[in-house]
Structure formats: structure tokens, C-alpha cells
């Protein structure tokens, strides 16, 4: 099953490599990984999406917790949560394609953020399925370049991940 694990990590050099190393060393999957500073400058927040059986996921969270620099973590998929990913896509856009793409971007609530005579650059945010859906809708043949940030997530409601 796919899981989103969100980690508060000491903001120190080498901390990230320990997390990444753990995944490769123990043969766990990483589908996406994002990391950025938080409002507390001593902490970074890292979000990793992974897949595995319940047993593997339990090991992943336990092994992550063992890392000295991991302060706290939560498996967001255990409860209600919001998940977002940002995507920038360059699409071939000439002639009648231009109107067609514009319509599809609107349906997906994206924005065209850069334009040339033959190319549109589109920005789109949402859960990973929505981003996949957009690529499918415009058809891979017109896609020149895709860049995705990987998943960030947060729990719904009152629950917060903090110290």
C-alpha cells in the first residue's frame, strides 16, 4: 500500500543522507521525497511516499525513528490528510492545440505560466492522481518536459506534527 510518511528532522548536514541511505540500505522504496525548512529553523520537514506491506511500513517507521536526527514522524495515511504536489509541464502548443490545452488546463484548475509561439508552460497543483490525470488528458505526445516536486502532506483537523 502507498504511504505518506512525514518526518521532522534536525536541520543538520548529513541528516538527509541518513534518511535516504536507510531506504536504499534496507531495500525500501522511495517514490517521492521532499525536504524543506520549517518555521523552526532547527528543523526540516521531510515527506516521503513509499509502498510496502504493513510489516514493511512498520519497519520503515521504526527504523526512521531510530535515526538520532529524526525528532518525530507520522504516517499521514493512517488518518485523514491533505496531499499536494506541484507540477510544471512544458507542452507543444501550436495551432488548434493551443485552445485545446487551455481548456484542459482550466478543467484541471491549472495555470499557464509561460508562453512562447510554440510552447505553453503549465503549472498544476493537486494530489498525485490529479497530476497523472492531466498528463493523460493532454496526451504524452505533446509533453516536452515534466517536473514534479514530490508529495507534501498534512493531517486534517486539529492534529499537528510539531515538538
Amino acid at each position, binding site marked *: 500500500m502507498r504511504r505518506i510518511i512525514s518526518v521532522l528532522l534536525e536541520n543538520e548536514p*548529513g541528516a538527509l543522507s*541518513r534518511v535516504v*541511505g536507510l531506504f536504499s540500505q534496507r531495500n525500501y522504496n522511495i517514490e517521492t521525497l521532499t525536504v524543506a525548512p520549517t518555521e523552526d529553523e532547527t528543523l526540516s520537514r521531510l515527506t516521503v511516499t513509499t509502498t510496502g506491506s504493513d510489516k514493511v511500513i512498520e519497519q520503515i517507521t521504526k527504523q526512521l525513528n*531510530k535515526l*538520532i536526527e529524526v*525528532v518525530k514522524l507520522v504516517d499521514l495515511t493512517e488518518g485523514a490528510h491533505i496531499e499536494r504536489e506541484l507540477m510544471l509541464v512544458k507542452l507543444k502548443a501550436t495551432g488548434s492545440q493551443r485552445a485545446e490545452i487551455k481548456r484542459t488546463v482550466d478543467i484541471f484548475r491549472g495555470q499557464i505560466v509561460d508562453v512562447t509561439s510554440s510552447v505553453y508552460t503549465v503549472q498544476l497543483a493537486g494530489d498525485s492522481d490529479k497530476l497523472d490525470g492531466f498528463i493523460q488528458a493532454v496526451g504524452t505526445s505533446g509533453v516536452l518536459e515534466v517536473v514534479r516536486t514530490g508529495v507534501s502532506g498534512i493531517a486534517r483537523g486539529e492534529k499537528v506534527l510539531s515538538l
Partner: protein
Amino acid sequence: MELLSGADMLIRSLQDEGIEYIYGYPGGAALHIYDALFRQDKVKHILVRHEQAAVHMADGYARATGKPGTVLVTSGPGATNTITGIATAFMDSIPMVVLCGQVASHLIGEDAFQETDMIGVSRPVVKHNLSVRHPEEIPEVIRKAYYIAATGRPGPVVVDIPKDMTTPNERYEYSYPKKVKLRSYNPAIRGHAGQIKKAVDMLLAAKRPVIYAGGGVILGKASNQLTELTRMLGYPLTNTLMGIGCYPASDKQHLGWLGMHGTYEANMAMHHSDLILCVGARFDDRVTNATEKFCPGARIIHIDIDPASISKTVEADVPIVGPVDAVLKEMLALVKESKDKPDADALASWWKQIDEWRAFHGMRYETSPDVIKPQEVIELLCKLTNGEAFVTSDVGQHQMFAAQYYKFDKPNRWINSGGLGTMGFGLPAAMGVKLTHPDDEVLCITGEGSIQMNIQELSTCKQYNLPVKIINLNNQALGMVKQWQDMNYESRHSQSYMESLPDFIKLAEAYGHVGVRIEKKEDLESKLKEVLAMKDKLVFVDIYVDRFEHVYPMQVARGSMKDMWLSKTERV
């Protein structure tokens, strides 16, 4: 406040940490530190002949004393030479701090002379690693390193020290922190009361219980609690290779050790049990055999300080995270006050069954009128040293024979590389033990293959007068490899012979020690007595043993715990 250079601060921190010995080897990036070492006499440095040996020495010291060992090496090759030793300590959860020199900060990343990213290289085999970024941090970094190494589930910690952190004429205020606090590292200090209660209820209701104890009992200094609880319940106990000595081997409730080369009765009892109380062990693949066939009728209580060890390979029914001594103490109190008692009838028939298994195999082996059997060498050594020696071993058949036939009644005396299986561990580990136990007998039981992996340390033994006894069970082969080739590859002995062995007697003599060769069975006892009488000499005893012997019992690959070879021809 005192003003000290980084190098002096480092050595002072070691003093304030109470470190008696460090094992190491100098080089460019560590020279400021070596100079600071020279100008004091509290911390004693042992100069090895290869950095790997320094780590195994620190490791042997740690296993025998329960205190963290300390290593000091230079950058680059000095640091990389420690990796096998660090990995060995990591796999067996041995507390240790490895101090590595590093090129100066401004050179890092430039492929400078003797630069290796030791933080990166060591990462998968350490509990943690730290690098010093400012000389003033040194006392705190050192305090942290020992704190992390020795608490919770212990393990090795590497400290990377760029050369400019130890510059002699740059001085800073020194004070050694009494305590460190890490917000993200809080090892459990007691188990969950509800879980402990549940475990005790299950324990008292069991009909065919087995206690399965591991190295965690020794590391957690919980042998007394374990022994008391086991005796109070009257239940059978087996331990892992790493747990040898956690419960007296001579006691009738002890079934010997379990797993791949465990006793018939221990493996049978595990397989047929209805309840396993696992204390400080980790259901390693060398214990469980195929996990899907593991102990089908057993419910499992698992006590461990490391939550990640629980339900990793075998699902626990009652997990208890906590230090084994504290948890066992609480269990003892509950057992004492409980009005439920173990089911005496069930226990009697369980013991009757176990005694039948015990009688069936009983660790028998065939003897011969003229060939020396490795098993009888170990039995004799056990007798001649009253089972009280510290025994280190290397890896192979000799290791298994030593563990099977030397009967340890006390913890911390059986010292081997169980998790990583590192050939070359035995001699330096024995040296680390002998240094701090000069009046105890220290035996290194080895093979002619393994001993050659760190044989240069005979020179260190000379320099520091470390009269260990090296017992070389010389079968003129990489015996364990050969055994597997006999069993799985129709005896095609690919690269498992040791041709052109050195003359170990002359070699020992060349290093300034005594060498004794034993070839005839009738000489064995008298010569071993002579060897043990040479108290102040390192003696290299080269014993020609049966070249065709195999280690049994041996679990059948991918079988259950109860599927074993009992000899070359008997399979159960």
C-alpha cells in the same frame, strides 16, 4: 576557565569520560592529537599493527567489561581500515567510539591527500556519526558520542575530526559537560506495565514454555534477573550464540544454544513450544531457519530495548520495549505476587519430553584412537581452565566447536563475532580482554585460516606483554567452507584448502613468543597443561585436528527449527 587546544581538549575529554585505554595508529591528520596524547599519562594508547585490529581490541574490551571501547586513527586509509571492525561491533551492538582524523576543513571535498568521506563510508554500519565543526564543540561531541554509544541499544559511534579542529596554538575554554540531552534520542527506561502484566499471565498459563535469551541480556547486564526468573518458573532456557553465558550452561534448566548449530534439544523444544519468552534476542536467520515454518504452535513475548528488533522477522504477540533488566525485574515481582503458579503437571511432562530429546543426541561425536578431534580439544580446555577462561574466537568450525563444548557459566566470557562473522576478530579481541584482565586466562580459539587475517598483532602482543593463549585448531582447510561444499556441492572443494601454511611455531618464535605443536592424541592433555602453566608467555598452540570433521547438529537449509542433520548420515 582553562584554555586548551582542540587536541588537548579531546584528550582531556577522554580523561573526564574515564577512558583508560585507546587503541590506535597514527598518521598525518591525527598528529596533533597524538602529540596531546604524548604530553599526558592518564589515557594509555595501545599501538596496533593494523587499524582493523584496533577496533577488534576495543570491541573485545567492551564485551568483557561492558564499557565502551575507544579507537583513534588517522584519515583516509587509517579510517577505512576500521570499517570491518566497526561493522562487526555494529552487528553485535557493541558500544564503541571511533575517533578518526580528517583532512583540514578547507580541503574537504577537494580529493586532498588521504581524504575519505568517513561520515559517508561509515554511515550504514554505525549507530551514529558526528563531525566536529568547531574546536569548541569537542567536549560536547565526545560526551554525546559516548552517551549514544553506551545507552539504549548500544553500538559504534564514529567521530570525524578535521585536522584544523586540533591545531596546537589555538586555545579555547574547556569544560566537560556532565550531561547531554538530545531531544530526538530517548531510549526507553522501562517497559509498558500493561504489556508486562499480560506477558506474565501468558507465561504462567503456558504448557510448553521456552525462554529464548540473546546477547541483549549480556549487554543489558540482566543475567541475574534472567537466572532468577528462570529458576523461579522452572522453565527450560536456551540462548543464542551471542547470549552464551547469560544463564549458567551447567544448570539443568539450560538446553544449550539454539539455531543452525544449536543443540537438538534446544531446537526441538523451540519447535514444539506453545510459548516463547524472547529476551534481548532478534530472531536472526541463523536462529529461526525458514521463518514461515518457525515454531508453528508458539505464541511469542518479545522483550527488547530496540523497537525495530520486535516483529522484524517473526511477529510478536506481546511486544515489550524496554531495558531487559528493568522489565525482567517487574516480571519477577509479578510472578512472585501472583496467585497463579506454573502448571506443574504440564511442566513435568514437558521436561520429560525435553529430557528424552537431550538423551537422544547429547552432543555426541565420534572419537578416534589416533586423530585429535576438535571437540575434545575444547572439552579438555574447558576442564583444564575450570570453565572460567575468557574465550574469544574467530569464525568457522572452530568457533562452533568452542561455543558448543566450552561450558560458560558467566556472562561476558564468550567473545565472538556472531552477527558479521568476521574472520580475524579473535586475536585482537583476546588482546583487548587480556589487557584489562591480566590475571585471567584468555584463550583465542582460532583456525589456520582466520588467524592469518590479523596475525601481525603478535607483534603488538610482544610490545605490551599480552600473554594470551592462541589455540589454533589446524584442520589445514577453510573448514566451514569445506563443510558446506561437502554438503551442498558434492565435495567440490573450490578454494577451501589452505596450501603452503606457514610454520606457525617458527612464526610465533620470530615474533618473540613460544610455539607448541600438538600432533599426537596422546600428547594433547600433557602439552595443553604445559601451555597453560606458562602464565606470562604468549603461546601459539598449533593443534593438528581431524581434517574431515563437520559441525553438527546442523539445521537443514530452509527447513523448520526441528529439521537437522545430526551427523554426516543422520537427518531428522
